[in-house]
């Protein structure tokens, strides 16, 4: 089915043939032919954002909550450079995106033309792959290839840079066929021998733990189902990274909570003391491991990952399994069932008893107050009042993000959208826009901090334009809370520029954006206002005034080991600076 079309027509046809329903974008000189084609068709909906970074985060939210590829369209020069943060975010968190950028005409490339930048040069290290299309006859192939590369293997953002003359030029279109890529063919099936070895090791474990990550969610809903099945079969405890929350239900008795720097006491100590660690789709990030040479010193490690470069990068794997989590988990379930191994029941019972004593430590305990809203309490109430609804949560980055991870209980995958790897303040609001576009009938809440949300606040205007009733639930302590917490930890409590002196009136701001503003000052008014927020069929900014100096615990200070955590109830809340070693101070 080869047809002659203009480059712009080819792009729109390719998007349609790839099943794209929504594009997040912002027009400009170098993409006008593409926008003209968008104008002429009705199949693909275009969401006009207010800043290109917002377009990419919205596409991330769309992709992560729906399992589809997010599509972004921006212009050359500043359009492309504004997208860089979002692209890097998607690369770090393995989110499949296709970002189309306009470029100046081929004849002008390299001449420092108006709104020219070396887009493929700038985005080379922050995309999974990128293309500069110089010949319109390559365009259809590259578009289809971009979708293939974005989705296959470890997902990630792919950028296609299209000069304006290529958008006008006539070329031949060919539809997507089953791609056998010349070079990019990631290994999906894990080695059968390695899977058998892993099952043998698991069967002999006395103190096992599943350590799961975003890879389980990226692999698709079936992988989450299989993880639950394997956990059920084995009876092993499960912990997860921030990116993996929801793959395993928080209500399960086998769930230990999130691990890592702000993870639970039981999860981190179980990781430290385990003898067999089964890492599924996680990458031993420094937020997870703490001090590497003290990380889980006595365990044998099984590492399942589709990206070979993630294996033995930070922590050596004893049994590496390169493959898709879903496939490998399915095989593990099959092999486990077939072998019906005799596990060491006594040892496992003792392990669970040990975990029980750690749980009794009640590490997330905090001192609630009735004169001021504690941020943890606010999230607990938000959870209680939304748990029986079809709810999606996004977050910004900082203390509120960690409290959301600790206190909001996720039962299903694809329900939490957060910036894990890059830690991008300003992610949550535009991501909520994208989630709401994918799920128009669902309740979408951005658990935010007042500092983060100011970074992409303009996207409230997008929400208003498309009647997207997103809820921005701001835990407002007037500080960059996590910066302040670290200044207490490392810099003698000198709050250098971590206090916002002149915040806007968020209620009025919501109204200015054609939304609804709500404010809660006292714990006893919280429930009613949250219900009011949920029932408002418009975008809402909820200014939840919380305790200004609350800190996020437990915490593994940087440079420390899992078994050396700072616990909330041990801290007077004032001087926590003694906890960090010189080595830790140089860490981020």
């Amino acid at each position: 089915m080869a047809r002659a079309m203009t480059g712009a027509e080819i792009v729109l046809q390719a998007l349609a043939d790839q099943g794209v329903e929504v594009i997040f974008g912002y027009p400009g000189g170098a993409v006008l032919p593409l926008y003209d084609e968008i104008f002429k068709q009705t199949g693909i909906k275009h969401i006009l954002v207010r800043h290109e970074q917002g377009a990419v985060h919205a596409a991330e939210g769309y992709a992560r909550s729906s399992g589809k590829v997010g599509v972004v369209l921006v212009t050359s020069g500043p359009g492309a450079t504004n997208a860089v943060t979002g692209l890097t975010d998607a690369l770090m968190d393995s989110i499949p995106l296709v970002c189309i950028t306009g470029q100046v005409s081929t004849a002008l490339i390299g001449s420092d033309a108006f709104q020219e930048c070396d887009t493929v040069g700038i985005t080379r290290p922050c995309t999974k792959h990128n293309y500069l299309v110089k010949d319109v006859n390559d365009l259809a192939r590259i578009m289809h290839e971009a979708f293939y590369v974005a989705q296959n293997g470890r997902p990630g953002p792919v950028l296609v840079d299209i000069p304006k003359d290529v958008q006008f030029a006539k070329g031949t279109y060919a539809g997507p066929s089953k791609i056998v890529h010349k070079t990019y063919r990631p290994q999906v099936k894990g080695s059968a021998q390695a899977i058998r070895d892993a099952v043998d090791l698991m069967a002999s474990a006395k103190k096992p733990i599943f350590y799961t990550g975003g890879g389980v969610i990226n692999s698709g809903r079936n992988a989450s189902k299989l993880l639950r099945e394997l956990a059920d079969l084995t009876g092993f405890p499960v912990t997860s990274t921030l990116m993996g929350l929801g793959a395993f239900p928080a209500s399960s008795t086998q769930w230990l909570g999130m691990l890592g720097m702000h993870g639970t006491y039981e999860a981190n100590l179980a990781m430290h003391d385990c003898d067999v660690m089964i890492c599924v789709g996680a990458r031993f990030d420094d937020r997870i491991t703490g001090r590497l040479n003290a990380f889980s010193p006595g365990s044998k490690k099984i590492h399942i990952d589709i990206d070979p470069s993630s294996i033995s990068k930070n922590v050596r794997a004893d049994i590496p399994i390169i493959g898709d989590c879903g496939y490998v988990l399915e095989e593990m379930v099959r092999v486990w069932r077939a072998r019906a191994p005799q596990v060491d029941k006594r040892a496992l019972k003792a392990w669970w008893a040990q975990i029980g004593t750690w749980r009794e430590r009640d590490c997330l305990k905090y001192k609630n107050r009735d004169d001021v809203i504690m941020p943890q309490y606010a999230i607990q109430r938000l959870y209680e009042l939304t748990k029986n609804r079809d709810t999606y949560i996004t977050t910004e980055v900082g203390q509120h993000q960690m409290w959301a991870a600790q206190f909001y209980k996720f039962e299903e995958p694809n329900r939490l959208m957060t910036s894990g790897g890059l830690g991008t303040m300003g992610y949550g609001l535009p991501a909520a826009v994208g989630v709401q576009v994918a799920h128009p009938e669902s309740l979408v809440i951005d658990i935010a901090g007042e500092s983060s949300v100011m970074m992409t606040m303009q996207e409230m205007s997008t929400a208003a334009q498309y009647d997207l009733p997103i809820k921005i639930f701001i835990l407002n302590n007037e500080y960059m809370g996590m910066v302040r917490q670290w200044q207490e930890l490392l810099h003698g409590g000198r709050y250098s520029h971590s206090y916002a002196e002149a915040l806007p009136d968020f209620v009025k701001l919501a109204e200015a954006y054609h939304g609804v503003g709500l404010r809660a000052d006292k714990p006893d008014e919280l429930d009613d206002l949250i219900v009011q927020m949920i029932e408002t069929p418009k975008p809402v900014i909820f200014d939840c005034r919380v305790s200004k100096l609350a800190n996020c615990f437990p915490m593994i200070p940087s440079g420390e080991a899992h078994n050396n955590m700072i616990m909330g109830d041990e801290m007077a809340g004032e001087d926590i600076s003694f906890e960090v070693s010189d080595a830790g101070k140089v860490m981020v």
Partner: protein
Amino acid sequence: MSKMEWGPGMPSEEPQKEKDERHAIAVLVDNEPGVLARVIGLFSGRGYNIDSLTVTEVSHEANESRITIVTHGSPAIIEQIKSQLGRLVPVHAVTDLTIKGDPIERELALVKVAGKGEKRVESLRLAEAFRAQVVDATTDHFVFEITGRTSKIENFINLMKPLGLVEVARTGAAAIARGPEPM
């Protein structure tokens, strides 16, 4: 080693204690624009070493180029380098020639030596011993062309230093595995 050097964010502590190894890695890539930038950017972005890098098209029909990278690092870092190279989209194959066995490595150097009298005679005599060719000469200078392993070329250059070495141009190593099989 001070405690400051330990901690998260460092690639790994254990391999740091391991000896650095020198490896020659062959990478077969699609000869498309930007592919070399991807490879070099990977090395600079992740802090890997490049001792030498050569690249040129090896198959016009298949549009393939072969990159030979000589690098050094701990065994864990070498493994990372290979995995990271392998996941670049335009990469066909990555082969660690050093692991496959003592690979054949050749480098070409052009060595300009100026001088008169006994030094000039000595430089010519050494060039013969090293099987270097004279490719340009006046009564005041020679340009020698020498091929061989990197270590041989370095020996030769060191010997030329006191004899009037002016400048050197080197290609970097090209390498291939022994035996009948391809990479």
